[in-house]
């Protein structure tokens, strides 16, 4: 059988009578008396390790480690080059043989065909851009005429500057702002 909880009764009575301090005290006592949830065992150790791995010193150590491996890789490349020098005449002979099988006429025809295809594609792209440009011409001319006036040009420049600064400011503001209204759809 349940019995009325004295703390709850105190809380309700204080709330009903508008005694804020008493209601606060009762609710505080009530909530602090509840067992409080804890993370799993070993949380402090895991967190200390995570902090250590994420620390800037660890970052620097990782960077040094990477640099060391870059050095090792460079040394290995140099060693491979040094060891490969005796094999250079053989490699050159193989390349010469391979090149000998490619005829000049065939290569030239292939190059010309490739170039013509490339030029065709480029030409199509340029034509597309030109058609867009043609449509934008009236707007460009109107803008050019307006900006010819120093007063308009400086006004536009000033507006752009203010807009850029405002955008930057707003971005920072939104990033820093951590109101619940940004995180909870019901607020």
């Amino acid at each position, binding site marked *: 059988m*349940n*019995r*009325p*909880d004295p703390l*709850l*009764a105190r*809380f*309700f*009575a204080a*709330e*009903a009578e508008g005694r*804020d301090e008493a*209601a*606060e005290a009762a*609710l*505080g006592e*009530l*909530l*602090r008396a*509840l*067992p*409080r*949830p*804890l*993370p*799993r065992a070993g*949380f*402090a*150790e*895991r*967190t*200390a390790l*995570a*902090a*250590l791995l*994420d*620390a*800037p010193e660890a970052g620097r150590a990782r960077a040094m480690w990477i640099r060391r491996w870059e050095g090792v890789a460079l040394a290995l490349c140099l060693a491979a080059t040094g060891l490969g020098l005796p094999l250079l005449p053989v490699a050159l002979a193989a390349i010469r043989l391979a090149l000998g099988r490619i005829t000049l006429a065939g290569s030239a025809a292939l190059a010309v065909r490739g170039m013509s295809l490339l030029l065709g594609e480029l030409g199509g792209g340029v034509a597309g851009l030109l058609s867009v440009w043609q449509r934008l011409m009236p707007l460009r001319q109107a803008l050019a005429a307006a900006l010819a006036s120093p007063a308009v040009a400086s006004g536009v420049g000033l507006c752009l500057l203010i807009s850029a600064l405002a955008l930057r400011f707003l971005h920072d503001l939104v990033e820093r702002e*951590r*109101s*619940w209204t*940004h*995180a*909870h*759809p*019901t*607020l």
Partner: protein
Amino acid sequence: MKGSTDAELVGHVLAGSQEAFRELVARFERPVFGLIVRMVGDPETAEDLAQEVFVKAYQALPSYDPGRKLASWLFKIAHNATIDHLRRKAPEAVPLEGDGEGGDLLAALADVATESPAAATERRDMARALDRAIRALRPDYREAVVLRYVEGLSYEEIAEALEQPLGTIKTNLHRARKQMAVALSALGWGPETGSAPAS
């Protein structure tokens, strides 16, 4: 380390002591995790976020102002981390009714090992009702309630941690108490019904 003040502990951490940082985490893991788990609901996510909070605190410790209360500073980081997390992932609605919700948290809240079965049941029922009443609050009210009534922060410390005006905090807490009273009554724990939980 265990007997050190918060300021001394911070000094040791800044001097490079890992043991001091572990002690700092052990000292504040319960309040930080407690706040986050109340806000996100899922203990696993809360643990990840709590770890993120302490790692951020460790990295930002050189900029910590010793004139401020360390707990308030950590709660501020926890508040920011929780909001950032919820911005990325929209929170699910928290229903007032229903037994299936928040089972992990309720299990964590119900400490039945040291009580008689009847007392444990009653305590668990009341814990369940209080938990539901808290979870039914808007997140900004809920956060203020946890900081004020569970962690015992002053209005000023809460305002500083949540970066809100003092008046807003007082208003939110006043409204939160009213809503909790209504919710507890609805769950059968009101003054008219005495203590008669629905579950």
